[in-house]
C-alpha cells in the first residue's frame, strides 16, 4: 500500500501530536477509509503509542476502518429526519441494495452509512450521495435516486 500521502498529511500538520484527529480525518479523505497500515504509520511518525491513535479512530463514528464503496450513501437519522420517516427510507435502501447499514455491496459500488444530522433538517428525510444532498426523499423515490449512480 502506498503510504506517501500519510507522510504528506502528517508533515502538513508539522508532526503535531495534538493533531491526531485532524490527521485521521485527512487520511480518511485521501484513502476513503482508515487503512490499518496508515494508522500504524501515523503512530510511528508521531512517536505515539498505537493504542492512542486507534482509540481516536474507533471513538468517532465518522471513521471507517474498512474500505468503502465507490458511492457513499449517507442517511440522516437525526430527530427531524427520523420523525419524517428516515427509518423507512433506510430500510428501503437496505432492501434495494441488499446490504445493511455500514456495509458495502459485493461489487464495491455502494456503501450505506448513517449520520446523526447534517444540518439540513428542514428538508428531512435527507439522504446524501457522495456529499450531495437529496432532501424530502420518500420511500418511493429511493430506487430512482440510486439509479442515477448505478
Amino acid at each position, binding site marked *: 500500500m502506498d503510504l506517501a500521502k500519510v507522510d504528506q498529511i502528517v508533515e502538513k500538520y508539522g508532526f*503535531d*501530536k*495534538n*493533531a*491526531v*484527529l*485532524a490527521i*485521521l*480525518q485527512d487520511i480518511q479523505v485521501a484513502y476513503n477509509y482508515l487503512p490499518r497500515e496508515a494508522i500504524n504509520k501515523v503512530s510511528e511518525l508521531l512517536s505515539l503509542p498505537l493504542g492512542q491513535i486507534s*482509540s*481516536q479512530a474507533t*471513538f*468517532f*463514528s*465518522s*471513521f471507517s476502518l474498512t474500505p468503502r464503496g465507490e458511492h457513499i450513501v449517507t442517511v*440522516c*437519522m*437525526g*430527530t*427531524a*429526519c*427520523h*420523525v*419524517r*420517516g428516515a427509518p*423507512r427510507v433506510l*430500510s*428501503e435502501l437496505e*432492501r*434495494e441494495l441488499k446490504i445493511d447499514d455500514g456495509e458495502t455491496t459485493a461489487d464495491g459500488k455502494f456503501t450505506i452509512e448513517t*449520520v*446523526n*444530522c*447534517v*444540518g*439540513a*433538517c*428542514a*428538508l*428531512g428525510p*435527507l439522504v446524501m450521495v457522495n*456529499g450531495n*444532498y*437529496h*432532501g424530502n426523499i*420518500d*420511500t*418511493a423515490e429511493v*430506487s430512482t435516486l440510486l439509479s442515477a449512480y448505478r
Partner: protein
Amino acid sequence: MERISSPNALLDVIKKHQDARDPDKVRISVCQGTGCIASGANSVMASFESTLLEKNSSVELLGTGCHGFCERGPLVVIQPEGTLYQRVKPENVNEILDKTIGNGEVITKLLYRDEAKNTYEKEQDVPFYKHQERIVFAMNGHIDPSRIEDYLAMGGYGALAKVLLNIEPEQVIHMVTKSGLRGRGGGGFPAGVKWKSCRDAEGSPKYIICNADEGDPGAFMDRSIMEGNPHSVIEGMIIGAYAIGATKGYVYIRNEYPLALLRLENALEQARELGLLGDNILGTDCSFDITINRGGGAFVCGESTALMMSIEGKVGRPRVKWQHTAKKGLWGNPTNINNVETWANIPPIMDRGVDWFTSIGTGDVSNNPWGGSKGTKIFSLVGKVNNTGLVEVPMGISIRSIVFDMGGGIKNSQKGRTFKAVQTGGPSGGCIPEQYLDNPIDFDELTRLGSMMGSGGMIVMDDRTCMVEVARYFVDFLKEESCGKCTPCREGLRAMSEILGRIVKGQGRHEDLVVLEDLASTMSVASFCNLGLTAANPVLSTLKYFRQEYLDHIDKGECAGRQCQDLIKYTISEENCTGCTLCARKCPTKAISGEKKSLHVIDQELCVRCGVCDDVCNFNAVTILSGPER
C-alpha cells in the same frame, strides 16, 4: 484590502463601505445556504450569472447565507422591494430578469402561497418572517458571507471599534452581565458571569472557545450563522478575548459542516489581513488569533470538557469538573467556552446597548442575570410542520405562535393530521403536549415543563408519531453516544433501550414502567456528565404526558401513532380506493394487487410495512390498523 492601523481608522473604513452601499440599488439575492443548495440553488445561481452576463446587465447578484425558510428553497429575493420568490428553478431566471427586473412586474406563480391560498409578495409580509425579530440573523440574506466588505458595509466590526476605543474590559463584562445574555448552547448560563470568572482566574495564556459542534440532531442554527455571517462570530470572539484577556481562540466545528468550515476559514483569513486578528489588533496592545478544530462526529464532544480533551488531542471523554473550566480548562489554563449563537449576540449588544437588549425577552435581569431570558432565540422548526426552517424570535413567545403562525400549522392537516407534541432541547430534552401551547417559552419555562431550551431544536410531532418510539429513538441515540466512562449512563441507557425495544414490539409489561422510572432517577443523580444526568428526560416526559400510549402498547398491542412496525397492518379501504393502481406500481415488494378501477388488496405476507402506499395514495384510501382491530 489594507491593514487597518487603529480603531478610528476602522470606523472610517466602515463609513466608507456604508456610504458606498446604495440601499436603493436593485439587487438579486440568491440563498446559498445548505438547505437551498440541497434544493438546487447552485444551478439557479449559475443560471443568473450566465444570463446576466449574456444580457450585459449591471444588476448586482448576491449569493447569501441561509434566509431560514429552507422548506421553500431555492429562495430568491429582489431588493430593494424585498420581493420573495420561492422554489425557483433555473428555467425561471429569464422570466425574473425580463419581468421583475426589467419591468417591475411580480411573477405570481413564484410567490409564497399559504394553505388558505393567500399569496404574499414581500418577504417581510410572509407569516414565516413577519413574526420574527432578527438580531443574529439580521444580515443573513443581505450580505455575501465570503466578502468582509459586505459585513463592513452593514456596520460590521463597528462594535469592536467602539469597544477598543471607549470601553474597558471590565466594563464590557459588566455590560454582558447586565444584558442578561444566557448561553445559547444548552445550559443557559449567564455569559457575563462566566467571562468574569475567567478574567479573574490566575494563569496565562487564557483561552476562549467557540462551541460549533452542534451535536443536537434537528438543530442547525449554528451552521447557518457560520455559513451566512461568519464575521459576526469572529467579532464576538475578538470582543470576548479583549474583555477576558485571552490571547488564543478555538472554534471546534463539526466535520459534517464543510461549507461552514470554508466560510469561517475564509473569514478568518480576511480578518487577519485587515489586522482584526493577530498581534496588536488595530494597533492596540490586544493580541488574539483563532484556530479551527474539526470534530469527529461524537455527540459527547459538544460537552465542554470533552470538547477540550478533543482539542488537546485526546479522546473526547468528559473530565471532572471539580475545577471550573474558567480556572482550569484547556491545558490547565483559564478557558471560556461559549456557543456560536452566544458569540454572535455580542456585537449587537455592544453596538446597541444593554437597555435595548433587555427590552426584548422575559423577566427582570437588572439585579440578577438569572432573573429572565433576554434577547432572541433561533429555533429550528422542523418535523411535521408546513413551513420548516429557522426562526429567530423574542424570548417569551408561545409555541403556538411558532408552530401555527410562522410554521403554518401541521403538515398534511387536509389528510387529517393533527398536532400532538413539540420536542425541544435535543436528545436530553422533553416533549411538550398541546395543553402548553400558549405558555410563553424561555429558558426557565421550558425547564419547568420538563424539557429544556437546549440549542433550540423544535421538532413538531403529529398524531402519526408514536411517543414510545420517540423515547426509544432518543434512548438509542444516547446509548450509542454515551462515552461509556460511567456506569449509570452506560448501563442505564442499555437497560432502558432493551425495555423500550420490547414495548414497541408489544412485549412490554407493567413493571417495565416502574423500572424505567427507577433507572431514570438513578441516572439523573449518579451520572458523571450532563449527557447521563439528563438522558432520561425523553422517557420521563413522555411517561408523564403520554403514559396512555405506553399502556396501550403493553395492554392492547396498540400503537396510537401507527408507527411501530410489529403492531400495525396496512389495509386499503373499499370506500376510498379508486383503483388508480399507483400504490401497486410503487410497492417495492409487489405486495399489492388489483385491477384498474377496482379495489386493491395488500398481501400481508409480502408487506414489509414500508408505508409507500400510504405516502403515494391521493385518495386517503390506505388505513393503518393497530391493536384489537388488527
